[in-house]
């Protein structure tokens, strides 16, 4: 099972990204996904987490992820040392940041710049979804196009697809 932990602030769309990822993975037969937010009252700007679990068989464990394969930060003000203790041994962190990081566990990009350029807003959820698809083999660019078409309002679709695919290309070029 691949477990993905999303970190964001209320209003940044972390749960939407967690849900889109699960839906994208489960587009194909024989694949299963669970996606859920940290439950409870929500406030704009407050730190929130969201969870996606992906597997080749039905997933029984509905509890929150304690150790992730990937931990994705939509907002680097939420990132700190504690992030490493929430990772499995080969786990990776995917970070939206303006800074440069040398740590091999950290994959970073300036998602905000991509979001501002393509969406005209600093909403980075679909950008980070695209970036994730570049570090995880199970999601193709076609899956991203399809899942956004199926799950987002029509007027948001093309821009979000463009933003997600731009982030995917940016990470693949770095590799």
């Amino acid at each position, binding site marked *: 099972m691949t477990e993905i932990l999303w970190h964001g602030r209320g209003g940044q769309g972390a749960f939407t990204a967690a*849900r889109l990822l*699960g*839906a994208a993975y*489960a*587009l194909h037969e024989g694949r*299963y*996904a*669970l*996606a*859920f*937010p940290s*439950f*409870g*009252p929500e406030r704009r700007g407050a730190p929130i987490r969201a969870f996606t679990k992906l597997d080749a068989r*039905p*997933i*029984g*464990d*509905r*509890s*929150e992820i304690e150790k992730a394969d990937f931990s994705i930060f939509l907002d680097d003000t939420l990132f700190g040392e504690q992030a490493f203790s929430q990772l499995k041994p080969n786990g990776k962190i995917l970070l939206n940041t303006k800074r440069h990081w040398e740590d091999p566990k950290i994959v970073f990009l300036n998602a905000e710049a991509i979001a501002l350029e393509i969406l005209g807003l600093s909403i980075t959820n679909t950008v980070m979804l695209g970036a994730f698809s570049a570090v995880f083999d199970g999601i193709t660019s076609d899956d991203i196009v399809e899942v956004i078409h199926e*799950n987002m309002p029509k007027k948001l679709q093309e821009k979000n697809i463009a933003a997600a695919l731009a982030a995917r290309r940016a990470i693949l070029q770095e590799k």
Partner: protein
Amino acid sequence: MARKFLSGNEAFAEGIRLSKPQVISAYPITPQTIVVEKLSEMVENGSLKAEFIHVESEHSALSCAMGASAVGARAFTATSSQGLLYMAECLTYAAGGRFPIVMMNANRSTALPWNIYGDQRDSLSQLDCGWIQVYAKDAQEALDLALMSYYVAEHREVSTPFMVNLDGFVLTHTYETVDVPTEEQANRFLPAFESDHKLDLDHPCNLAFSAGPEHNSAFKYKEHVGILKAKGVVAQAEEKFAEIFGREYTGLTENYRIKDAEYVLVTLGSIFGLAKETVDRLRERGQKAGLIRIRYMRPFPAEEIAEAVRNAKAVAVLEKDISFGYEGTVYTNVNSALQKAGISLPTVNFIGGLGGKNISGEDIEEIFEELKEGYRGVKFMGIGGDGQWRR
């Protein structure tokens, strides 16, 4: 059939859309709200042709559904927790009036302390009010139960209201892959609701009347028989369901690796998935663990449970509930089933998940471990047993 990625609430709303209720009356409450929102959207966009009635409370929601049912309309409502409790007066009215209303309840803790998270104290506290009660394990079963609930509730021999329970948040708010049937399939499965007992100017009859000491017992006996007959109708519904939709269900319980099991866990709701994974892990280590999921709490699967544990060494009951001053209600029911079948086994009641507290795979392993001790009684998980700390 369409493969979709839906939450438990959304999947259930799809099931209700396919069941085509004519009247929906509901009041929103966390964590049920999304069901009501989705249905009102469906009514608004025309994909569900129903009268959506905005009511001022849960008491009114169920009263309204009864009024609709009394004229022969298919009625739906949904609630949770304090909403269900506020509705309690009407629960026995609907059952005694034999109105086959379907209600979805998002299982949530009851106040005080105030808490919006999932446990099963709300619905289990209303076990005696005359409703059929079923507990879903995942979003697919939730959708399927929406369709099956009307089939069973409206059956002439049953004519009993039907409560479908979904664990709050862990089921209602978790997204997973769900097959959404076509309308054509749903129409083939679910006949139109027809009742001889309705408010009809051409054929007047008396409904929702009073009955004094002389006749009261007979009415209550008939109510009891109606809910008992649901058992056979559930089997009939599931057979037809499997033919049309290709998914099989197993009646009042679902067993897992039970055949040669020495230690058996009995539980209900969405914890089943995790319990199955835990049983697999224990089996790999050579431990003979088995599992029973109670699907229906009413009618209660007494024979099914007794038969399944006859050769076991001990039985654990895990429930998100406590009847204060005694034990968990599910445990009481399970013990009664064993006693009637002449089975005398050590049984232990594990009270867990109250107010949404997470139950982990390790917690479930611990249950199987403690079951070997031969203890009989109640344990609050992570706290202790029968008023004292044991560990």
